[in-house]
Each structure stands twice: as C-alpha cells, then as structure tokens.
C-alpha cells in the first residue's frame, strides 16, 4: 500500500506543526538561554523542510502515478484479513490476558494464527498448547516474570 509522496509529505508536515505547537510554551524553569523547547522546535523545523520537499516531489509526480498504489496483497481480501489478524491478536492479548490468564490466551491466539496460515487443526491445537507452555516456562519459571493466571489460579505452579 503505497501512498503518493504528496500525501506522506502532508502527514509529516502536520506532525511537524503539532510538535512545534506542543513544545512552544514548555516552561524553562532554570532560565537557560536554550530551554526544553529549543531542540523540539529545531527538529520540527527540519521535519517541515524535508516534508515540504517530499510533498513537492510527490506533487510533481502526480500526473504520472495514482494517489494510492495498491500492492497485490492489498487487493486480496484474504491477505488483508491475515494482516489484520496480527494487531487483532495483540489487542486480544491486551484486553483478555488478565481475565483469562496466559495459558488460555496464548494458545487461543496461536491456534487462530496457525490455522489462518493453513496449518491442519490436528497439528495446530497440540502445537499451540506446547508452544504456549514452553514460552510460559521460559518467562515464568526461567525469568520469574509474573504472567497472569486468570481462572487457572488454583493450579498455579
């Protein structure tokens, strides 16, 4: 998914403006000649300059290419769905790992991702359990990381 550089330039120009406005009024308690706003302002100035050049280059190429060039994968609903699975899996972990515990959340995530990749269910199920338990052992037993247990609290080891 490739945007025209004009679009990217505008986005970064906006970012530069945001950073500049947010840092303009930073307090300077020690009254130094250059306070905490100096460096962010220089950076936003440079970013604005680069973004403007990028945007102008993009505008010049405007008639030669489309505004948004879709790569092959972006036209395929299956690929898009598989791509969305990655953030979905992380968000699922964010929202449910405390309630469900690691040993339930992790195999669930793995089994969905395995099967989305075309692994047979007969292999995906045991594999996701095994991988989750192995990872749990590394981090919980090996490194002492407090992974959540959720409803499995009674069998905590």
């Amino acid at each position: 998914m490739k945007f025209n550089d004009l679009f990217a330039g505008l986005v970064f120009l906006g970012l530069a403006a945001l950073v500049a406005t947010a840092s303009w009024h930073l307090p300077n308690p020690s009254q130094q000649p250059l306070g905490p706003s100096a460096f962010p302002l220089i950076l936003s100035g440079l970013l604005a300059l680069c973004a403007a050049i990028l945007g102008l280059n993009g505008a010049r190429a405007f008639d030669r290419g489309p505004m948004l060039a879709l790569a092959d994968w972006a036209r395929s609903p299956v690929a898009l769905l598989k791509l969305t699975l990655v953030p979905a899996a992380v968000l699922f972990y964010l929202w449910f790992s405390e309630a469900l515990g690691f040993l339930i959340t992790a195999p669930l995530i793995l089994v969905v991702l395995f099967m989305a990749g075309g692994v047979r269910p007969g292999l995906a199920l045991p594999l996701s359990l095994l991988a989750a338990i192995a990872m749990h052992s590394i981090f919980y037993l090996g490194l002492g990381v407090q992974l959540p247990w959720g409803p499995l609290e009674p069998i905590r080891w």
Partner: protein
Amino acid sequence: MLDAYVTALGMVLDPYVLAVITASAIYGLVVGCIPGLSATMATALLVPLTFFMPPVPAIAAIVTTSTMAIFSGDIPGCLLRIPGTPASAAYVDDSYQMTLRGEPELALGIGLWFSVLGGLFGTAVMMAASPAIADFALGFGSVEFFWIVMLGLGGAVFIGSSTPLKACIALLIGLMISLVGMNNPAGQPRFTFDSTEMLGGVSLIPMMVGMFACSEVMRHMISDGSAPQIVIKKMGPIFANMWRLTKQYPWQLIRGSALGTVVGIQPGSGADMAAWMSYAMSKRFSKTPEKFGTGHPEGLIEAGASNNSSLAGAWIPALVFGIPGDSITAIAIGVLMMKNMAPGPTIFVNNPENVYALFLVFVIANLLMLPLGWAIIKVASRVLQVPRRILMPIILLFAIVGSYAINNSLFDVGLMLAFGALAFVLEENGFPVAPVILGVVLGPLLEEYFINSMIKSDGSLIGLVNRPIAAVLAAVTVGIIAWTIIASLRAPKDPARPMPQDL
C-alpha cells in the same frame, strides 16, 4: 591492560557465560538460516531475555547471535537463491551457481571459512584500535561529541541509504520519539500526555521488538508463505578446498577484510554495504571479471570476509563514542545503556574488563563458528524447510511476552504493536526503518551535547565550531550532506543502486 584481560578472560570462561554464548550461537545460526528472518530480528527478539542477565552474558548473547546470523544468511542464499539476511545478497548469484553445479559444499565452505577469517581480522583491528581512539577521545568536550553524533547520523542517512530524503524524515521521527519523557537537560516532562508510563520515555525494548519482529510478522502475513524447494540432497566435505583457496586468493581475503572493517567503522553503513562494495571491488581488480556471477569463488571470498569483518568494525564507534554503525549495534547500545554500561571513551577507564570481555566474546564467537557453522550446513536442508507459518505466530507471541516481561506492563505490549504498525507502514512506503532506531537511541545524547555546548558558548552558534577538532568534524559532516544534495540535484534520474535498506 594485561590484568584487565586476565579478569575479562575469567568473566568470559564462566560456565554460565559460555552456555549463553553457545545457546545464542545456535539460535543465531538457525534464525539467520531461515529466509525472511533477518539478523536484526534475531537480535531484537533476544533483547528481552538479555534484560534478565548480567552485563557480560547479555552483551555476549547479542554479539554471538549477530555474528552467527550474518554468516548463516549465506546458506539460503546459496541453496535457494534467497539471501537469509541482506548482507548475503551481494554474492547470492555466485554461490547459487555453485549449488546448481553440484558444489554447494564449496560455496558454503567459502562462506564459513572466510567469514571466520574476516571476523577475526575485524576483531583484531577493533582490539588494537578502540582503546587508542578512546584514549584520544578522553579530551573531547560536548562540542566534539555533538559533531561525532551528527557525523554518525549524517552518515547513516546520507551514505547508508538510497533515499536520503526519506531516511532523513525517518531519522527525525526517531529523534522526535526520543523527546518523550523527562530525559532532557532541563528535566521537563515533554509529550507525555499526562501518562506516568511515558515519563521515563518510550521504552526501547518494546519499540525494537515491535519494529523488527512484529512488523516482520505482518509482512509475512501478506506474503504467500509457501515453503521453498531445495535442489540438493547431500553435502561433500566442507573444508576440503579452503586452504588451497586461501593460498590462491590471499589479497582478496585481506582486501575484503580491510574494506569491511573500514565500512563497518563508518557510521551508518553495515554488513550489507560492506559486502556490496567488496564484491564490486573484487570484480574491478579481478583478472577474470567475466567469471563473476557464474559461480566463481573470488568475489565470494572477498565479500564473505567483508561482511563479517564489518560487524566488528561497527563496534569501534559504538564502544568509543556510543555511535551505532547499524541497527544491530543500535540494539546493542540500548542493551549496554540498560546495564549501566553506557558506551563512550570513559568505559575504557571505568569498565575496561567488561570491554575486554566483549573483545574476547568476539574471538570466541568467531572460533565457535567453525564447528557450529559446519553442523548447521550439514542440517541446513532440514532447517530451511521449517515452515514459516508455524514460526511466525510463535515469534509474535514471543514479541508480546518479551515486551510485557520488562516492566510487567501491558502498556509496553501496546507500544510494541504501535511501533510494529509504524515500521510496517513506513517500509511499505519506502522509508527505511533503521534511522528511526538510530534517532531514538541517539536523540537524548544529541540534545544533551547540543544544549550543553550552547550553554557553554552563551547561546552563540560559533561555539559549535571554534575548537579545531570540532571544526574538522563539522566540515566533514556538512561535506557529506552537501555532497549528497548536490549529487541528487545533478542526477535526479539516477537508477536505483542496490543499497542496504535494512542496515
């Protein structure tokens, strides 16, 4: 110095450290061998584990993994014509032709043997040069360090990238990310959005794991992910012809190692650029340039030695000035800072035994590469067939848990995802990701040196250039930037040269 080396040897020969080295070596070899998993990703995934280790094994794990992964990237390049890491891309045609000719053991033997020699050469230069440079740099003030950081960043953006403008934007994004938190000369909270988690700044580990592992998983999801087909059945003796080739091509070996080390030292250009340049140089000086690309050992020897020697070379500016030469050393610097071993000339005074231990790890890792590399070549055809549709979900889970493990914080997991998505979108649009990491790692230092220099000179910009060394560094930095701008204005239709995107 000898005392410090003896202490260092004791630290490295500790059974725990040796076990870490061996485990990371096997890990690096396997990951580097699997196409689509880069050396940078291998290193980034390891960082959460190093968080729980003492300094010496932590840094040993990083050094060993990256050294091994750069070599084993040659394996899929040779057997499948898919370079395992970008550093192997330069000579993939030659090595694949050898495989088609039925001599995969010759191509892989050259990759292994000359990687080891190149790596040892780079290590020797690093051991000899960095204490001396550090000694010289002890007299540097904030102005000199400001220009060294500028030179490092300028080199990364303007030399190490094929799209300087986009690399520059990527760098500025990284520098802006580094603004978050209270870690600035005035100690003011900036861009924290009133969140306590952001006061300490953006945590490096979730960010690196996100940018190099999570984004890789996303890219895998949109690829077809089919398993590669292997053409070879069995391997002959791997080291059979190596001594003969060493005697036949000594100059290629030395030239490759030397150029690789120099390219590595130059901030911003890593193993992949070293390999491309050495391959080109080998062809230029060869008596039989027409044989290049047809399965000729000469370029393979020179470039194979070059990419491994550059790895050690990159550590010289990293250790002496804290300037990473590529993303792997940027990750390593993050680990050193985490372990309260912030690199810089004083590290040679305060912690010499730790630095010497690092040198020794390089030597051990390169020597260990001979037996372990031999073993991985023997089982390579099986490792290559490990399906990525099984590996990638496990890598994603590892990235989640690894980010969580540092602070037991789900916030960091969200951060990991955000940076993974950012890296994915940036790369899809042709922005290199490595400058972002360089910016985040170097941002606080750059600001500190800049503000301190300006305070010393009462806010006058002349203060940045009125000391001789600072003036020279400034001239070189400005020269590099000006040269790139002039060159791009002169030849706007320059055909894309093969350049490292994943430095």
